[in-house]
């Protein structure tokens, strides 16, 4: 006997194709990527990401102008060092936009709505991380692309080396975006209150970098150069810088981990950060998905 007949009041059933898990995951990715730049949201939400992206471009454009007008090709910024030079701006971008992606659904208790669809917890976390990584990659890769194109146009010598360094710079941008995206989303997911997420993310990024630079200065003062290099692994920017210098042929930073082994160690730390963040975010969204 069919129990459901009493509720079947004659509406037509949907018998078409159902868009499955992959489609939902892709939609979450696109939605979060747009949200990271405030697209599809009021103008108020667009101001900050685009202002910051504009500030990121300024030094590159200015540098190209210097190279072109003063005819000084050696003044071109090294590609892998660009993100290190502008780390404050990138940090602020991460801090303002990470809560947009990771805090809002938790704050308004709307995470369970996602899981009423054919999407599993890991899909949501990975889609969010991929979206934020893409947004950060756009923020960091566009300026160095401008640098590279500007270098081509002004005919900076050694175009082959330039291309190699440019590709290395792109890889470094990707790595930095992954690491920063993981850290940002992780911190933001645990501070759902508005304003606090921003402050928490910037506190983690800024305090780690100031702390490490102060301690590095002190260890160098005491003559422990190797230790000082290893300490750089404790903050995202010099961590990625170490990988860029040791493995991707980037420009020498002020201080770096010793040897190619140090570079692989730095890469390992990056992998641990990203994997750890995914695991913790997974359990966080799983918990927020109940209710």
């Amino acid at each position, binding site marked *: 006997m069919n129990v459901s007949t009493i509720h079947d009041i004659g509406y037509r059933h949907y018998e078409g194709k159902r868009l499955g898990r992959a489609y939902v995951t892709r939609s979450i990715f696109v939605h979060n990527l747009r949200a990271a730049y405030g697209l599809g949201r009021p103008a*108020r939400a667009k101001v900050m990401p685009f202002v910051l992206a504009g500030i990121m471009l300024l030094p590159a454009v200015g540098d190209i102008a210097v190279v072109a007008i003063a005819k000084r090709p050696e003044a071109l910024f090294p590609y892998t060092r660009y993100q290190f030079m502008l780390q404050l701006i990138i940090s*602020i971008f991460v801090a303002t936009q990470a809560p947009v992606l990771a805090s809002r659904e938790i704050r308004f208790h709307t995470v369970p709505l996602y899981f009423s669809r054919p999407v599993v917890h890991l899909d949501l976390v990975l889609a969010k991380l991929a979206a934020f990584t893409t947004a950060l990659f756009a923020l960091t890769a566009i300026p160095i692309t401008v640098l590279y194109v500007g270098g081509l146009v002004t005919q900076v010598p050694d175009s082959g080396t330039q291309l190699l360094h440019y590709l290395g710079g792109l890889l470094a941008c990707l790595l930095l975006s992954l690491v920063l995206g993981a850290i940002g989303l992780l911190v933001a997911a645990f*501070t759902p209150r508005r304003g606090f997420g*921003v*402050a928490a993310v910037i*506190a983690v990024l800024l305090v780690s970098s*100031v*702390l490490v630079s*102060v301690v590095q200065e002190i260890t160098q003062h005491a003559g422990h150069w190797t230790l000082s290099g290893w300490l750089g692994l404790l903050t995202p920017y010099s961590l990625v810088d170490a990988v860029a210098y040791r493995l991707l042929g980037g420009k020498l930073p002020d201080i770096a981990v010793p040897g190619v082994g140090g570079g692989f160690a730095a890469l390992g730390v990056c992998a641990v950060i990203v994997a750890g963040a995914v695991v913790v975010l997974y359990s966080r969204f799983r918990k927020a998905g109940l209710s």
Partner: protein
Amino acid sequence: MNSTIAMITFRSMLGRRRALLLFVLPGVLLILSLVLRLTDTNDLDVDTSVLQKFALGAVLPLLALIAGTGVIGPEIDDGQIMYILTKPIPRQVVVLTKLVVAIVLVTLFAAVPTLLAGLILGAPAGLTPAFAVGVLVGGVAYASVFVALGVMSRNAVTIGLLYALVWEGLFGNFAPGAKKASILQWALSVTDSLTDASTVHSAVGLTTALVLLVIVTLGATALATVRLRSLTVASAE
């Protein structure tokens, strides 16, 4: 001052996990000082570097930003401020109460830890009280500016970060003009005048710094009051 508003604000700032963020920053400072003291690697340069770059340059602006925008921003965002504004309490009392709470928080979580860090380090040449006073004075000015920002803009935290990090930190390094218009430098000037250590330099004279600090503090508080008089509460995003 209105004790009920103050109590509610304290509870919202220190409730549950939020206080953790306020404890972590000074905690890192104290641990760093302790490690330096225990390994006996500190001298005048190191002490100045820790107190100036870390306590005054990083912990103070961040804490003042969290406290200053945190006491009023979230309430305006979610509309709860209406429950206060619809009571017969003058707006300047509301602003002053919020400001006092922010200043108390900055004192507790930035100025006192700076004093403790200095004592742990055993900093010579009167560096400890000088930096504690500098952090306190800077904290009052920062808190009033950030409370005003919190009333005026929904992007208060980001604008505050851009000011504290980009304007004071980045531009201050290579544009001397930007360095003069910075609360951090004014606070440093107060510190400079209180210590005879040769490692502390400020870009601004003491008189100018004091005058500017007072003007900025009073101006920001007045601005916050005026803006709170005609506050429009937008819907949540």
